[in-house]
């Protein structure tokens, strides 16, 4: 009698897997339906994480292209009234070693631009007029959709460059000989139309004129913003230097920001939304897990006879428990794998549609699959324990 030896027998992984596959194969419809819950949960989470990280990858590409070494100096925003930037701000900035190139704009307070002389004065369409020092577009990494930038000489002809949104509002999409706007009681030739500037979206709604023309329109000569492209290795130092260069006596009156920080921050606010969607995915996953548990409970009820037969063939309680546990694991893993495939597919389609790079973090995929294993184990535990408790006499009792 070697029952003592046999009593220690545990089934190998291959045998357990085989039993699990048999169990599932005979009820394919039910398998698909109960794995679907898990699949949806995993797919939702992977798609959300994948789309969010694809968009981040896109942002990184944009930032790489724009450069993260552009600084903006403006009149300090605070409780007290800081004086406006001095008219020499741009020259001061350009004198610094860390500054590679710089440009500035100044708001023409009373400036307005119209399609023609018949438009009522009040209908400015929210378009602001700015005087420009230097090639603003180039410093900000922006591009001209059409035409060229302003003539920067001290006595420039009267001309105008349109921001992207301003151009749309004025109905001028490219530079032509007769593309003119009505401004300060005269026609002004459009010499350039800008593409959207990602680092300074507020400029898209502006039009730009040379300083000499701006002065005719009542410009006070004070720049509202200085844009400086600085040594990429020395951005933090340049930040301090820039403020003291512009206002040596009171650098606290100059606010220096990095526009790429704002872009990154905008993306960071998306993270909370991502968190919400991941939470919804987690709920779907939980419900899917309950679905698996439910299916397994029903399966165990239906298969009392099989359990009885296996017990009669010599299966120990733990052999039965392991069999149903493996079946539950298989069921949820099946859902998990399907979910990963769907999630990756959705991400790929979405990213492709947006022209983004496809970036799905490995942790999301492995985490998703790991979660299904945990769910399968937890969901299967109770049904498997119940199965193990089915008395061996069930084989004879069941008809």
């Amino acid at each position: 009698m070697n029952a003592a030896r046999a009593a220690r027998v545990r089934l190998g992984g291959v045998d357990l897997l085989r039993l699990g596959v048999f169990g599932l194969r005979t009820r394919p419809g039910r398998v698909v339906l109960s794995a679907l819950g898990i699949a949806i949960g995993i797919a939702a989470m992977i798609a959300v994480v994948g789309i969010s990280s694809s968009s981040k990858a896109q942002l990184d590409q944009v930032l790489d292209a724009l450069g993260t070494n552009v600084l903006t100096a403006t009149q300090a925003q605070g409780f007290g009234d800081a004086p406006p930037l001095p008219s020499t701000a741009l020259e001061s900035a350009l004198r610094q070693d860390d500054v590679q190139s710089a440009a500035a704009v100044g708001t023409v307070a009373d400036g307005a631009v119209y399609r023609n002389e018949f438009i009522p004065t009040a209908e400015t369409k929210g378009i602001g007029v700015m005087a420009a020092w230097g090639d603003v577009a180039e410093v900000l990494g922006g591009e001209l959709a059409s035409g060229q930038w302003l003539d920067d000489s001290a006595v420039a002809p009267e001309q105008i460059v349109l921001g992207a949104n301003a151009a749309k509002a004025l109905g001028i999409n490219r530079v032509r000989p007769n593309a003119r706007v009505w401004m300060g009681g005269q026609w002004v030739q459009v010499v350039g139309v800008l593409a959207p500037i990602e680092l300074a979206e507020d400029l898209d709604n502006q039009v730009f004129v040379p300083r000499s023309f701006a002065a005719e329109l009542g410009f006070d000569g004070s720049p509202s913003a200085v844009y400086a492209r600085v040594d990429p290795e020395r951005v933090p130092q340049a930040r301090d230097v820039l403020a003291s260069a512009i206002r040596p006596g009171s650098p606290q009156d100059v606010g220096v920001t990095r526009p790429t920080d704002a872009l990154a921050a905008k993306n960071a606010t998306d993270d909370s939304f991502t968190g919400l969607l991941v939470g919804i995915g987690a709920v779907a996953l939980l419900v899917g897990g309950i679905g698996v548990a439910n299916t397994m409970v029903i399966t165990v009820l239906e298969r009392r006879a099989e359990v009885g037969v296996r017990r009669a063939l010599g299966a120990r309680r733990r052999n039965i428990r392991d069999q149903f546990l493996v079946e539950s694991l298989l069921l949820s893993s099946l859902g998990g794998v399907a979910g990963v495939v769907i999630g990756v597919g959705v991400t790929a389609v979405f990213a492709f549609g947006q022209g983004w790079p496809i970036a799905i973090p490995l942790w999301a995929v492995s985490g998703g699959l790991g979660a299904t294993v945990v769910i399968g184990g937890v969901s299967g535990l109770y049904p498997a324990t119940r199965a193990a408790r089915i008395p061996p006499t069930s084989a004879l009792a069941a008809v």
Partner: protein
Amino acid sequence: MTIPVVTLRGVTKTYGDVGALRGVTLDVAAGELVAVVGPSGSGKSTMLNIIGTLDRPSDGTVTIAGNDVATMSDDALSALRAEHIGFVFQHFHLQAGATASENVADGLLYAGMGRRERHRRAVDALKRVGLGHRVDRRPNQLSGGEKQRVAIARALVGDPAILLADEPTGALDSASGSAILALLRELNAAGTTVLVITHDLDLAVSLPRQVRMRDGLVEHDSADAAEGTARASAADLAFAIGGGR
């Protein structure tokens, strides 16, 4: 008598107030072919469960292949079943998704044997029951008689000390039924101890030994009758009175 494979001594089984077995004493020797007959509720299925160690007696001693069941743990009983007892059920109870050889190999699954060896023995067992040509068929591709042969092969494959068959022809037409009976005789002739439960009296009479049950007691055992052992009957009676109290 030769070595006993099954020994029941004063076995009772009560479910609540109902005495399903009320003191059964029975010996089955190696190599016997025994029919257990009796009407529904006579306790024959309960006795089969107890001989098969699927259930424990309320009282009395049960010894299977030399093992006293009372002292054994659930795991040890499982191992005992895996190694020494083969079951054949009225409704076959084959795994639907698995082939004939996989079903038969499952009879060795819990005996701690390698996969390849299990498959080899399964094919041998299928040949013994005349299904060497149906090895890769699924149950739904087999006739009722063939299914029962697969089930018998599954019971046999572990080379059990005793084969317990519960109404093995109950779900079959008469031609398939007699073929199955012939197979059981053949296996018995080759040395397997077989105990068949049936309510078919004609079938029972055709077997060498009949045990007739009624109301949880052995009413008649042809082995006792042949040996004319009034002593045994008296002992049965004594246990019956004791157990039925």
